[in-house]
């Protein structure tokens, strides 16, 4: 663990050993950062070593697919890419609905390596991008913390963020997602921002804007930056810390950042049209007013101007606020979007947007997941915050605001733990650095006075004289030095070791599952790989028509498109709620009603995930209640959530389950012909129950494929001429003409319904 070795030499004043302190500390810094990079990289490789170099989960599959498309067809074709394989029959304009930073980054690396004649497959770049970027994040965190406190604290923070589970959860090898590179961009933007506030130079502000541009191109979380930096400026204004440096850095950053961010097609005109970005423009206007008033004040620095200054600022703030409110009411500025609004009004999503509430990472956070993701940092970062506030300056105002806002957001949504983690690492780095610096520094004079008495006499008399003054106190303190100080050091080493083993354990056990390849362990510790997902997607790509349309719940859309290369109806880009609701309605209806919807949507195959045979809990039956809820939101007449529960309000699939439940399409597709799952055959091991409706036949669909462990089941939707038609021998396929039709025409009329002559009238259909 590099953390422990880092602290001593950098913080200590051991001039005695090395004359060139600056060179020595640079060496230490570079070594520690390299080790942090390596440690961070290595701890993210569990998935690759256990399984293989493979893209994980859901969203990364889309990112990988579009990266591959971009590498193949070029950047401009990528920007104009209309993907007809998604959201059938609507399609999706990929170039305009995606943050291209991730694809561009890996595309650039790919291009660079190929220019150097290193032939590497784009998949490997995608798999290893996030671990590599974790090292860059560590460096950015080091720089940020050095600006805030000291280089020692920076090294601590870098080591923390390299391995902390809260960040490695989103950046293990194979999780090729925006967050992997966005946290680096976030930290680096903040570092440059602090640098520009400190120096007030246009150069650093433009660097901030460029880094912000990269962040905007990479992740929707850029909204956090464009609200936090104005908040910082605003609080500095309130605290009376206005300065020319602040004025220059914010105005330059805001204008250039605004223009840059609008270059991303997905963002477009949002920065000037939506409420999420209005704080930035409001603060910009306010800063202009304050700057102007300050200038007037400097022209005539007399007492009464000060009142005017304060009053003018207040009036300007009120005017800006009212202007934003008025524009929102007039509809010029779009109000807060649901996703952001639900951060403030925590009950909002649950009532109004079930599709947001259904995602597990949008749930609030329990204390144990805070502890799981941050371990010892969770109870040391307040110490860093304490000392930052006690020794406040312009930069530390920023980090305090960052900590408080991020901890709030992390409390509301598990997913936003990711934005909390960097600041927690920074503040804990500060806390550990303070304490170890104190404990270890005071060792030096005592050591010096005991051991190197002679050597000191040789060259530094003056220093010795200076030290005389606190001498009596120091002899008293030696008792503390002998027992408590080593105790402190040992205790903190143990804490740090616990932290590092915890991080490794958490990353290995909780965050390194590719989730498309499952592993199960037998009693003897042997491992079985369940590769059902890829088996099914492989089957789809080999055995279905090129343009076959696959209906599944939206979770699997990206994987079907990425691995199966087939058209999907809905996918993880959940932009069209009514389309998703339609699929949910099909799954929740009975077979014949579902067939109507499926033929309306041109569905060829239906894919369901069924975990009953192996006890996989993330299957479609367990997600089913959300399908019902989302369908009910759009089709309240046809789908009622209550129908899927028993009278006592339980969600069951056994004989006591509700009738609607036992006859809906999802149930039937999951349990059709199911006879595995141990004893008795047909037992559902996920829900520990015997399915209530068994041995049924399917009328409108037929089973096409079921994977080895029953995990993925694929059904083909029959064409209209394939069902409800008992086989009739050829001789009997004629209908004898009934008496009601006049016998004047002796010719037989085929294909007419009996006793319904009205249909025939005026329309002589001669089929012969």
């Amino acid at each position: 663990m590099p953390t422990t070795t880092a602290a001593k030499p950098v913080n200590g004043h051991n001039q005695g050993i090395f004359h060139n302190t600056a060179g020595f500390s640079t060496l230490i810094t570079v070594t520690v950062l390299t080790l942090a990079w390596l440690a961070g990289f290595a701890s993210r490789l569990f998935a690759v070593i256990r399984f293989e170099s493979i893209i994980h989960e859901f969203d990364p599959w889309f990112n990988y697919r579009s990266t591959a498309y971009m590498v193949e067809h070029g950047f401009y074709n990528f920007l104009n890419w209309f993907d007809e394989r998604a959201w059938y029959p609507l399609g999706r304009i990929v170039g305009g609905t995606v943050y291209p930073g991730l694809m561009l980054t890996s595309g650039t690396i790919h291009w660079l390596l190929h220019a150097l004649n290193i032939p590497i497959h784009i998949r490997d770049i995608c798999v290893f991008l996030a671990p590599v970027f974790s090292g860059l994040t560590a460096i950015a965190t080091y720089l940020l913390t050095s600006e805030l406190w000291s280089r020692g604290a920076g090294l601590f923070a870098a080591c923390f963020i390299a391995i902390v589970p809260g960040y490695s959860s989103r950046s293990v090898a194979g999780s090729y997602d925006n967050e992997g590179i966005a946290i680096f961009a976030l930290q680096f933007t903040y570092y440059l921002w602090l640098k520009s506030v400190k120096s007030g130079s246009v150069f650093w502000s433009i660097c901030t804007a460029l880094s912000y541009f990269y962040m905007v191109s990479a992740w929707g979380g850029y909204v956090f930056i464009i609200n936090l930096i104005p908040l910082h400026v605003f609080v500095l204004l309130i605290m009376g810390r206005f300065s020319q440096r602040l004025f220059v850095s914010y105005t330059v950053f805001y204008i250039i950042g605004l223009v840059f961010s609008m270059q991303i097609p997905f963002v477009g005109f949002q920065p000037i049209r939506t409420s999420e970005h209005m704080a930035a423009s409001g603060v910009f206007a306010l800063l202009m007013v304050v700057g102007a008033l300050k200038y007037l004040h400097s022209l005539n620095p007399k007492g009464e101007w000060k009142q005017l200054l304060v009053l003018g600022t207040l009036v300007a703030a009120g005017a800006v606020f009212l202007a934003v409110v008025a524009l929102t009411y007039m509809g010029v500025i779009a109000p807060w979007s649901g996703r952001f609004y639900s951060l403030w009004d925590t009950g909002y999503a649950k009532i109004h947007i079930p599709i947001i509430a259904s995602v597990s990472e949008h749930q609030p956070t329990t204390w144990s997941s805070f502890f799981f993701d941050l371990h010892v940092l969770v109870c040391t970062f307040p110490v860093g915050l304490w000392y930052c506030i006690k020794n406040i300056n312009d930069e530390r105002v920023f980090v305090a605001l960052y900590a408080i806002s991020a901890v709030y957001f992390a409390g509301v949504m598990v997913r936003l733990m990711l934005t909390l983690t960097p600041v927690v690492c920074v503040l804990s780095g500060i806390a550990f650095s303070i304490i170890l610096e104190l404990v270890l520094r005071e060792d030096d004079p005592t050591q010096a006075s005991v051991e190197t008495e002679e050597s000191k006499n040789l060259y530094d008399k003056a220093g010795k004289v200076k030290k005389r003054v606190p001498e009596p106190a120091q002899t008293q303190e030696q008792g503390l030095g002998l027992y408590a100080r080593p105790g402190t050091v040992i205790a903190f080493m143990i804490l740090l070791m616990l932290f590092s083993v915890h991080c490794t354990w958490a990353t290995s056990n909780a965050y390194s599952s590719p989730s498309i390849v499952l592993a199960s362990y037998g009693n003897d510790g042997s491992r079985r790989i369940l590769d059902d997902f890829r088996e099914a997607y492989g089957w789809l790509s080999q055995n279905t028509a090129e343009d076959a349309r696959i209906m599944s719940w939206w979770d699997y859309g990206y994987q079907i498109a990425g691995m199966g290369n087939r058209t999907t109806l809905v996918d993880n880009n959940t932009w069209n709620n009514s389309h998703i609701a339609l699929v949910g309605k099909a799954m929740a209806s009975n077979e014949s009603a579902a067939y109507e919807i499926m033929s309306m949507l041109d569905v060829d195959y239906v894919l369901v995930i069924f975990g009953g045979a192996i006890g996989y809990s993330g299957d479609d039956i367990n997600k089913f209640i959300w399908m019902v809820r989302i369908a009910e939101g759009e089709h309240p007449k046809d789908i009622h959530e209550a129908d899927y529960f028993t009278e006592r309000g339980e969600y069951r699939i056994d004989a006591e389950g509700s009738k609607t439940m036992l006859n809906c399409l999802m149930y039937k597709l999951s349990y059709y012909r199911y006879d595995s799952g141990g004893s008795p055959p047909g037992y559902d091991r996920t829900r520990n129950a015997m399915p209530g409706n068994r041995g049924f036949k399917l009328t409108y669909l037929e089973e096409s494929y079921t994977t080895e462990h029953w995990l993925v089941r694929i059904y083909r939707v029959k064409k209209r001429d394939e069902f409800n038609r008992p086989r009739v021998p050829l001789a009997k396929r004629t209908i004898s003409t009934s008496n009601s039709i006049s016998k004047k025409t002796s010719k037989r009329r085929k294909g007419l319904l009996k006793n319904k002559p009205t249909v025939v009238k005026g329309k002589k259909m001669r089929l012969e």
Partner: protein
Amino acid sequence: MKFKLLLFVCAILTYSKTHAQNRVKLEEKVQQLTDFTAKTSIIPLNLNRFKEYVKSPPRDYSFIVMFTAMAPSRRCAICQHVYDEYLLVANSFRYSQSYTNKLFFGMVDFDEGSDIFQMLRLNTAPVIMHFPAKGKPKPADSMDFERAGIHAEAIGKWINDRTDVQIRVFRPPNYSGAVAFTLLFVLVAAFLYLRRNNLEFLYNKQMWAVAALFFCFAMVSGQMWNQIRGPPFYHRTKSGPVYINSGSHGQFVLESYIVAALNAAVVVGMILMIESAGGVKGTEAKSPQEGKKRRFQSVVGLVLVCVFFSLLLSVFRSKTQGYPYSFLFK
């Protein structure tokens, strides 16, 4: 054959006669109910009225009835809430454009109609039931508060479900939040104005730091989760109270307080250690007494950090299955 015909004619006659009677009676009933509704949007029902309007057959209207026990002696706290929401729905319906005489709202209080409770074998209150125009009430015709909640919107949605009458609940706008906010704002402003000559406390970093730390402890211990999910304070079992939820996906309110306290103890311990070693500025102890005091302080700090962090770790370990590490305590 003739007899049959006669019988048939008789049957038709009696039928049409009763039919006509029924229609008159129905119109009468609907008229009466409409009059009632004009007076109060919820019709109070006793046994006779209940039998006449809700139970007896000639009906072409749905009846929503709330069974409740409003008397203070019954100590039904939730009844009042449900009544308020129910009244809101009934009022919204009465004054809305979709008002029809196909739907009426009624209410039975236990103290006035305990026979009705017995008749319907109701043991609990409050219950909201729907009596459809045709047929008997099904299980789904009594509203499930546990799942749907007691909000007027939920009641309206349920009524829409059962009767196809859409009620847009018009909630009188709730100004209490805005009023409280304005009041707070005014108070703070007034306070600042009164102390405008002595605003030193605003520059008190200690105060701000303590406030920030409290906020962090609250968030980190999952108070937000508590607020959104509303878990019980702690769990009572037969073998005694349980304070720590055994699953890692849940927590009790008391548990989160304990965790906040443990976190705070660790933080206090660390701050004590830093201050005893001279603080950030690295001041030296000035006298032997102070040195002694500092030594004591630092040992206390160290003990606080180790013990409370170990406690935190062991609580976490008890919640997380298969977690292998611990420190000091199992």
